[in-house]
């Protein structure tokens, strides 16, 4: 079981434990039933939970009354599409080993608790830009380090 928790406005451990509890409940749901669950007992009043799974990957979003239920299902779809584009057929291992990239993607889609981008193409643009920046800075870093390392010797 792999889980990656991302909280926008939820503090620390309590949410982690709560999520563990909900993970079990989501897993125990039958196939072909609706994808919503009440979640107000843990995540506060009028919060609800929507989940969707693709093969072995489960995606769970918690939202409140400022969001539309079906739109949240779509948002999961957007997220998965983006992951698919990013990793070419996303699988468990991609998610396990690309911790920071996942955050980057999520940050582009959900910003400060609001949905800010719903086009996976737009998200990909930014993700690629960030990767470019990262590799650029890394190559510089590598050179300087070898040089400084050389000098230190």
């Amino acid at each position: 079981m792999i889980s990656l928790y991302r909280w926008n406005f939820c503090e620390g451990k309590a949410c982690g434990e709560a999520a563990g509890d909900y993970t079990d409940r989501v897993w125990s749901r039958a196939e072909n039933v609706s994808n919503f669950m009440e979640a107000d007992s843990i995540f506060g009043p009028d919060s609800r939970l929507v989940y969707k799974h693709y093969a072995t990957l489960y995606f769970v979003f918690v939202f409140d009354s400022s969001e539309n239920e079906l739109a949240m299902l779509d948002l999961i779809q957007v997220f998965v599409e983006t992951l698919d584009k990013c990793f070419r057929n996303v699988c468990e291992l991609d998610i396990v080993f690309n911790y920071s990239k996942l955050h980057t993607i999520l940050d582009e889609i959900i910003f400060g608790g609001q949905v800010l981008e719903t086009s996976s193409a737009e998200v990909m643009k930014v993700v690629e830009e960030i990767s470019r920046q990262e590799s650029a800075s890394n190559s510089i870093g590598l050179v300087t380090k070898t040089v400084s390392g050389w000098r230190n010797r």
Partner: protein
Amino acid sequence: MDSLFQRSLDDIIKGLRHQQAGESAFVSKVLEEVRREIKSTDSHTKSTALQKLTYLHSICFVDMSWAAFHAIECISYPNFTHKKVGYLAISQSFQESTPVILLISNQLRKDLKSNVEVEVSLALECLSRIGNLDLCRDLTPEVFTLMASSRIPVRKKAIGVVLRLFGKYPDAVRVCFKRLVESLESSDSPPIVSAVIGVFCELASKDPKAYLPLAPEFYKILVDSRNNWVLIKVLKIFTKLAPLEPRLAKKIVEPICELMSKTGAKSLMFECIRTILTSLAEHESAVKLAAGRINELLIDEDPNLRYLGLHALAIVAPKHIWAVLENKEFVIKSLSDPDPNIKLESLRLVMEMVSESNVVEICRVLVNYATKSEPEFCNVILGSILSTCSNNVYEIIVDFDWYVSLLGEMSRIQHCQKGEEIENQLIDIGMRVQDVRPELVRVGRDLLMDPALLGNPFLHRILSAAAWLCGEYVEFIRNPVELMESLLQPRTSLLPPSVRAVYLESAFKALVFCLHSYLKSAHGENGEASGTTLIQENHITPDSVLHLLNLIDMAVGPLSGSYDVEIQERARNILGFTELIKPVLSDSLHPQDERHKQQVEASKMVRLLHDTFSDELGPVSMSAQGRVPVPDGLVLHENLADLEAVCGSSLPASSATISFEGSHNVEGATSIFISDQKEESEPSSESTSLLAEHRKRHGLYYLPSEKNTEHHEANNDYPPANELKSGVTVSNDAQDLAKLAEQSFLPKRKSKQVKARPVVVKLDEGDVLPISSKIPQAKDDSLSEAVRDVLLGNKAAADSVIRKKGKEKLNAKEQEDDLDHMDSQSGTVQNPVKERSKRSSRKQNADEGDHGGDKGKQKRRHRHGKHRTREGVQNPPANVISQTPVPDLLL
């Protein structure tokens, strides 16, 4: 060279995945490494260590607050990768209370001004997650600048972060709000509109009233936008705004209906339906259209859509029950859907459809269904039956005999865990509805008789209620001996002590009742002839009395040594009584050696107790204490802190005066209780007369007063419930009418009620807490105040802030003009608004209409509107600024 041998994040992840059992050992080893590496001066080593720590924090919830300073160091590195690691760590781990949080202020400012777009994004993201008051205040000018950035992604995020700024630092409104509103009109770039509408949606959900003046802008988006996300958000905003302004509702109903019928997106369609049902429910034709769309959802294959369809029906049910009744079959069928959401939602709807005429039928179906369901859902069903039937003092129950037997039946359902609720209702009904007591006692007896039930801990509470009822209303029992036997059966040892104590007390009551009726009849055999029937009816013969006494010796005797004080005390009471009564009674049991005097003594004793038990206690209203008028000269809210000083010097003297004052002042009120005492001071019952004596002496009383004599009489002369009837119906007239109107929708309605509804004693109707006190206060007063200031042109305040910030001035002149315009409009339409809103009983609106005119009145009506009152103090009434203007669109 640390970095050469440093494990990367990938190594850690691999390592974690290969651990089978000793995961925590592995984690603590990694943590040790991290602690060492993070101190390195090499930026790469440090940031890798931080990255690993962040990962462990989010996967294993490892504490990383100690690394706060290292994270700050990382964001100051010029290398983008390191910076990013630092920002991620900060967003994951910082809280408002993190001590070093202020140290990032400068770095954030620097990055917000960076030329590299992704760096600006990092800083904005960080601010939106962890921004506290200080950070938000310091960085408001930078965010304000970015809100006009030419780079769309940056501008979008700057708008997103505004929500955090407003939340933490309301004065940011005075700086950023105008630019935010302007962004609403940037229809050339959809992402911007999407972001800004999202912000307004969040803002309006907290205090919709402040954003009413922006209705024209929102309306434009509603009509023009083609983006479903944006439309959904706009609809959410209108859901909040429409109830505040009937003319707005009228205006938007048509475009929303059009959107609903045209759109292909189910999410948008559902949002339209929800908006209509929640906020435009008065528009009959729109509701009809929405109902049509709901029907489409209900027959869809996708369970999500079916669930949401039912959910929509639940929204509409309170106002338009016909929409639910149209789909009655579907709703009932859905009770057996495999989907738990659908099941719950349909149960909710079934309960909405319950009325006086069909409650028997529906409950029958549901109870049958509950017995076949799995335990969890079974209890949900039972719970909703219980709450629906008891709603508003059993409003929908006509046949209480039926309901009481239903409660009995529910108790016997295998998975029933609603013991506490059933217990409360049984006792509650017993006390409120006099006519149902025989049936209650019958149901209670059946439960008590069944030894199998004693083994089910969920039923103990119900058994306790049954035992109490049978003891309290023992006169309705057909065979009290049998009752005694079941109350004292050996398996009662399975009960918890508190319930067992109730059993004992009931057994005591039943014993006294048996003896009393026996003696009465024995007496009657000698003198009067009337008692013979009683003997036959109650099966009480000299033999059965002997049997009872033996039973008590056998069953209660051992309990006199019980460790539980309640049980012990009650057992001893019973044993003491039987000890007393036995010698005198043995004579009367053998009538051949007749000694009249002894028998009289025995019957005297029994009668004394019997009278004590049969004396009924009237109900006491929950707010009785509150109705006691405070005597003149008694200051309840006086600060007693001074008293300490007084007490220190002369304690006895001061306390004496206080008690004297109390008794002296209240004496005058004693005369009210004549009726009270009449009832209470029956010569035979010592305890009650003592109570009356006590009351007389101290002038304590529960139910006053001269003001509402109707209530007073009803309460004190309990139980003559017939008198109460008139009082109840009068006060409930309005509710009854509403109920009748609602029922007229129902297709099948029994023409005649077979049985008249028994009187249900209600004391609590006046006691329900005023609803207004439950309405939550608007929390962010300062935010709404700021928004109102900006929107309504409280330019002095706005200007001062702006001057302080040295930023662009708001166009005050323009706003003033707007305001004048709006004021003149609102002046003319003030009255209609008031009238209409009164009719629809929307307090919020009434308040709006009255706002300028009648401050005093408003203050009284809105105790919760704290900020409004404050505003009233700040702005003199002559200043029209505080009046909510009416947007152009509405005219």
